[in-house]
């Protein structure tokens, strides 16, 4: 089954943490809504404070790439 790969980065802590995560994300074959949902799920499940989380890219991966 094809899956999604999300590339994220932790932003180094610098003083006061923002209570949001913001930036630009590259989307490869991933529609807007799917990207937004995936980022929200990752942010919620990862337990990483939003101010430390930054998304770089989201890419649709094939079965071959996932090794299944």
């Amino acid at each position, binding site marked *: 089954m094809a899956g999604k790969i999300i590339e994220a980065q932790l932003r180094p802590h610098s003083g006061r943490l923002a*209570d*949001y995560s*913001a930036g*630009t*994300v*590259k989307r490869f074959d991933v529609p807007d809504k799917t*990207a937004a949902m995936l980022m*929200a799920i990752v*942010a919620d499940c990862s337990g990483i404070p*939003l101010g430390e989380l930054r998304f770089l890219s989201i890419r649709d991966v094939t079965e071959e790439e996932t090794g299944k």
Partner: protein
Amino acid sequence: MSMKKVQFTETILRDANQSLIATRMPFSVMEPILETLDKAGFYSVECWGGATFDSCMRFLDEDPWERLRKIKAKMPNTKLQMLLRGQNLLGYKHYPDDVVRKFVERSVSNGIDVIRIFDALNDLRNLKVAVEETVKRGAIASGAISYTTSPVHTLKKYVEICREMKEMGFETICIKDMAGVMSPQECYELVSAIKDSLDIPVVIHTHCTTGLAFMTLLKGVEAGADVIDTALSSFSGGTSQAATETLSYALKQLGYEVPLDDAVLKTCNDHFKTYQGECLKSGLLKPVSMRTDTDALNYKVPGGMLSNLVSQLEQAGALNRLDEVLAETPVVRADLGYPPLVTPMSQMVGVQAVSNVLMGKYKNIGKEVQAYIRGEYGRAPGEIDPALMKRVLGDEKPMEGRYADTLEPLFEKTKAQLGKTARCDEDVLSYISFPQVAEKFFAARTEREENRASYRIEAM
């Protein structure tokens, strides 16, 4: 007796677009009407080259090569035409021969059928490589004369140029009056002189700027011109060409065979009329560009050059010396051997005339003027004033050969330099033509393809 056939080159996609709205018409405006335009019966549609290339990348975020391919796909029955500045391609500097050849080859491969080639000085050596390659690639080479009047630009001289052009492989001759200053009488005499001496189709290109165009085209047709450049009426007049529908109507009534379908022309013009309204509303199309301005006839300098002189003097706080500058301009032009007053010569002559008036006669000689005197732009039409030449060159001799002969091949080197940034040969040519603009365009293209989106996630 059979009627004389007069054919039309439609300029709305290139020169009319360039002259009236600074070449800002996007492909999205053209696209819906191209298939209809293809049925109108034009000899050719000028749609590419000139400033369209730079404008596509710089302002419209369009790949000019892709635009050409898309136009070709929608207009398979009409010859697509481009304007090429000989060895300068689409800019003002000389490029090495390998780049000129590659540019012509790719232009034809991507859909161009007619290449109109000219040189600001009418130095035919600067057209040689482009015409050779055009013919080799199976396209029609049209040799354009940069039209001007001077003691050295005689009818005999023009006919000589045309004869040489024919020998070089040009299939048609275009009289290119970019300033709109060619009078009906001058046009009649020139077309007659060419037609009397040579068996070659003649095309007339002029602008409405001074109000002469309709009369000039008519007299040209009477003298035997085969093709005229016109623009659909919503983008005609002023600094653009004379209206296609008007000339079609008048020439048909006069008994000429005009292979244009008036109903199709109307459909096409209705489409562009809507866009004209939008351009007027947004300010892109300025009413001043659509007016008749006879100053160019009075001062004997093209309209664009006159406004440049005024603005230079304004900046120097010396607008009161305009009359002196206008008197000095023909003197500088004569000193420089009567170059036609087209870009870049009009700027050079204008700046030098301003400098001569404000700072003293040739106290300061511009870098470009010095390069021109050294022969780097090509051969001057007449003799350059020997004293001025001595002053610039000293004991040095002016360049005898072509400036391009001094240039190293550039295409493969640039291609290697660009690496993956250039995805095809067309990209390399875009970069060589306009490096900074192309670089930005490539970066924007990559970004668009990567499909970047801004996001912000906040805790609930």
